């Protein structure tokens, strides 16, 4: 006995079954091409909304920047370490102006020569480290390099110098005494 798939009322082929609308589509018919169509106005609205989101983001950045006026504040003098604790060519990190403050990198370049910089790269704020071999304050994120005596960027993407912290030596102890503008 042969089965005729094309016969009305006969068993449907697999393709025919797939082409048949599903039960829910028969109950709730939708115009799919019309649903998927995006008008030019809708397309434009997307960009306007995205533009508004970016403006809001910039407003948030501006608010945050205006709110943090600590750069102009007078910073306290804080003991950092004893001179003999740091070998020549060595470095220590400390937080300034308080234990929750920004990390600062203190480097001993020579017997009586100390420099300190805020341990934050001026490119994208990665933590910089002292590399004694290359005599460079290094940003490991994008291979940025800062000259240790001035804090100026000498290689990599950073353009601005590191923020310096003034170091004073009193009676064999090193003190951090405020931030300095670097050239």
């Amino acid at each position, binding site marked *: 006995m042969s089965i005729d798939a094309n016969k009305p009322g006969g068993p449907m082929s697999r393709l025919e079954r797939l082409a048949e609308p599903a039960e829910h589509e028969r109950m709730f018919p939708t115009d799919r091409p019309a649903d998927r*169509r995006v*008008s*030019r*106005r*809708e*397309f*434009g*609205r997307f*960009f*306007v909304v*995205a*533009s*508004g989101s*970016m*403006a809001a*983001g*910039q*407003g948030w*950045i*501006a608010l*945050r*920047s*205006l709110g*943090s006026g600590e*750069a102009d504040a007078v910073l306290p003098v804080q003991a950092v370490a004893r001179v003999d604790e740091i070998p020549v060519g060595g470095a220590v990190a400390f937080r300034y102006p308080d234990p929750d403050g920004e990390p600062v990198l203190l480097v001993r370049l020579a017997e009586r020569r100390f420099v300190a910089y*805020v341990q*934050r*790269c*001026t*490119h*994208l*704020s990665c933590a910089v480290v002292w590399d004694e071999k290359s005599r460079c304050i290094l940003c490991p994120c994008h291979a940025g390099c800062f000259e240790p005596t001035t804090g100026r960027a000498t290689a990599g993407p*950073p*353009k*601005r110098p590191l*923020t310096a912290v003034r170091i004073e030596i009193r009676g064999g102890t090193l003190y951090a005494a405020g931030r300095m503008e670097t050239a």
Partner: protein
Amino acid sequence: VTEPPNKPFRFDPTGAVLFVIIGVFVGQLWLLMATMEAVLGGDRSISLPAFLAGLACLALNIRLFGYLGRGDGQTDVPNR
């Protein structure tokens, strides 16, 4: 051999407006990235002017958006 008929160039104002909107959007995206980079690098003086520029871009985009038609088959000018 039949040549395809030459279509006369017709200026599409809606497409031009969309093009400008996308251009302003891309410029604003660059501005946001540049602001982020400067602020993360410690240069905070740029944030307020950048915010104002971002607002200007948004205002321009909203104004341009007003020129777009109201949707499919509907335009600001009534059909006759």
